[in-house]
């Protein structure tokens, strides 16, 4: 069993490396491996890029692909955490309002900060957007969670319905902000509510990666307790888990990482749904394995989706949220259907 898992992780990491290389190489201009190496070499020697290909690689392609991979990892990890928390496989940040709330929070700052004095904006800018995104995301998630909880059990129907309502509020809020905004920001907001990596920068990648890294380590520490929660809240508490504290903490760290990602790249739905579901069928639900595996697989899948976003209508670009929803929503419907049928038999994975 353990041996098989080691093998599984090695394969997954290999796929990720190949995927990243492909994603960096293909695009409006294709970049050869040799050009990548020489670009890195020139960068290390702090020389200027030798040609346009090296510049595209260093300043546009690489940060974009890396930000995309980290975001994919975050969204999938979030799917695992939220599904564990809600004890339900059809939960993910796009459905329970986390992403929409975060997008709204971020859009508020985006529009209002246009009127701010430039020197204040320079100081608060990079942190204000993720911070407001976090506040918005946390509020939205909390509303959905507390309203859908009935007698200590989360009802799926009310969860989805309240999720729709909170999503609508978040999206209309974002829409209103874009209505208020003058042209340049407005364009970003519309683009942004569909998700895009077109504006990726190195600093966005570094902030997201640091947040993702820290939170991954914390989340992994909670994997045992989240496993216990699979048995039910009462049983988990008999195993010594303070379930209320666990739920509070997991919700906060989950919202933090989704918000930071959403603040930079917009709402990308259904990633957190597909990846954990497929992996559960392959390696089971032990969060200690599921969490890292989902992060790697999520990175692969979102990088692939972004490659599609760049290539399908090249040189034009499709917002990535459109692609993930197009592929993810049918899978979601299939899941619901399956859930409906199997519910009496004891659930999804029987």
């Amino acid at each position, binding site marked *: *069993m353990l041996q098989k898992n080691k093998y599984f992780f090695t394969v997954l990491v290999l796929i990720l490396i190949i995927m990243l290389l492909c994603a960096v190489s293909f695009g409006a201009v294709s970049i050869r491996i040799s050009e990548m190496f020489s670009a890195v070499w020139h960068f290390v020697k702090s020389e200027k890029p030798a040609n346009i290909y090296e510049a595209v690689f260093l300043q546009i392609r690489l940060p974009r692909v890396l930000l995309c991979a980290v975001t994919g990892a975050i969204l999938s990890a979030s799917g695992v955490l939220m*599904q*564990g928390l809600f*004890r*339900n*496989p059809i939960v993910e940040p796009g459905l329970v309002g986390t992403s929409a709330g975060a997008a709204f929070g971020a859009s508020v700052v985006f529009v209002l900060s246009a009127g701010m004095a430039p020197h204040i904006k320079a100081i608060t800018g990079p942190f204000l957007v993720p911070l407001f995104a976090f506040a918005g995301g946390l509020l939205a998630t909390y509303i959905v969670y507390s309203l859908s909880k009935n007698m200590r059990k989360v009802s799926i129907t009310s969860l989805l319905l309240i999720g729709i309502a909170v999503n609508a509020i978040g999206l209309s809020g974002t829409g209103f902000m874009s209505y208020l905004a003058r042209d340049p920001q407005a364009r970003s907001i519309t683009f942004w509510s569909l998700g895009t990596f077109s504006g990726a920068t190195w600093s966005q990648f570094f902030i997201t990666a640091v947040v993702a890294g820290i939170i991954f380590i914390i989340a992994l*520490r909670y994997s*045992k*307790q989240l*496993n*216990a929660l*699979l*048995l*039910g809240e*009462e*049983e988990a*508490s*008999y*195993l*010594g*888990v*303070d379930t209320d504290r666990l739920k509070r903490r997991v919700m906060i760290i989950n919202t933090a990482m989704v918000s930071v990602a959403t603040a930079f790249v917009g709402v990308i739905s259904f990633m957190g749904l597909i990846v954990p579901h497929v992996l*559960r*069928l392959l390696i*089971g*639900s*032990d969060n200690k394995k599921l969490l890292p595996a989902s992060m790697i697989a999520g990175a692969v899948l979102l990088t692939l989706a972004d490659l599609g976003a760049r290539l399908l209508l090249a040189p034009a670009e499709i917002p990535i949220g459109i692609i993930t929803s197009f592929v993810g929503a049918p899978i979601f419907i299939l899941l619901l259907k399956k859930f409906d049928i199997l519910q009496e038999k*004891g*659930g*999804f*994975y*029987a």
Partner: protein
Amino acid sequence: MLSTQGIYYSIGKKEILKNISIDFLPGEFNMILGPNGSGKSTFLKVFSGEIKPSKGEVFVDNKALSTIKKEALAKVRAVMTQQPELSFPLSVEEVVMMGRYPHFDFNPAKKDEIICAEAIEKMQIVHLKGRNYLTLSGGEKQRVQFARVLAQIWEQPASGNRYLFLDEPLANLDINYQQEFLKLAKALVQFKTVLVAVMHDINLAVQYADKLFFLKAGELVVSGTPSAILSEKIIKEVFDVDTRIITNPVDGTPFMLYV
């Protein structure tokens, strides 16, 4: 020893438990009986520490339950609830390992793995080890859960007792496993174990219990050894059914027939 002193519990205006004071001693198989809605399961939740009583206190080895940390308690006290359901697929082995969660930090120690293997063997579920828990039958799930609970309190603590509470543990078991299960539980009692079970089947309870506690409408009606307290009058009072009590020809315990 587990001792409940003057336990009251109410939800809103409705009193679920009224002034229950019981001492559960180690070395005895204690069984709680009573009709539906008599507060049996609620009472179990109170002395398990899952819900706080409105009034009164529970003492675990003379320490107030409310002062004991959840993590510490989980090392010596295990509870088997009625049919816990998993929300996601896990193998039988992984479910049993959950019983060791209170004992290790991140990765299970060698000792934890050995204990799980022994618990799995004891419950005769070795052949199910790698199976997805969700695909098991009700009775198989029950045995897996019992293995998990056993693994949790496998070792005797250095001081004090260990505690095992069972809420209607026989519900899904075939009759051969019911007997097996009760024998196994009873064998545990000898090793500094406080064992309390909420039971449904009175005849089975009488056959294995050292002490019976009858609850009705949230109150303790009577308690004592089966042969001392079981009578047609008591059963009529608690369950409102007419019965005849004869002597069980197999082991000489009282045996109840419905008339």
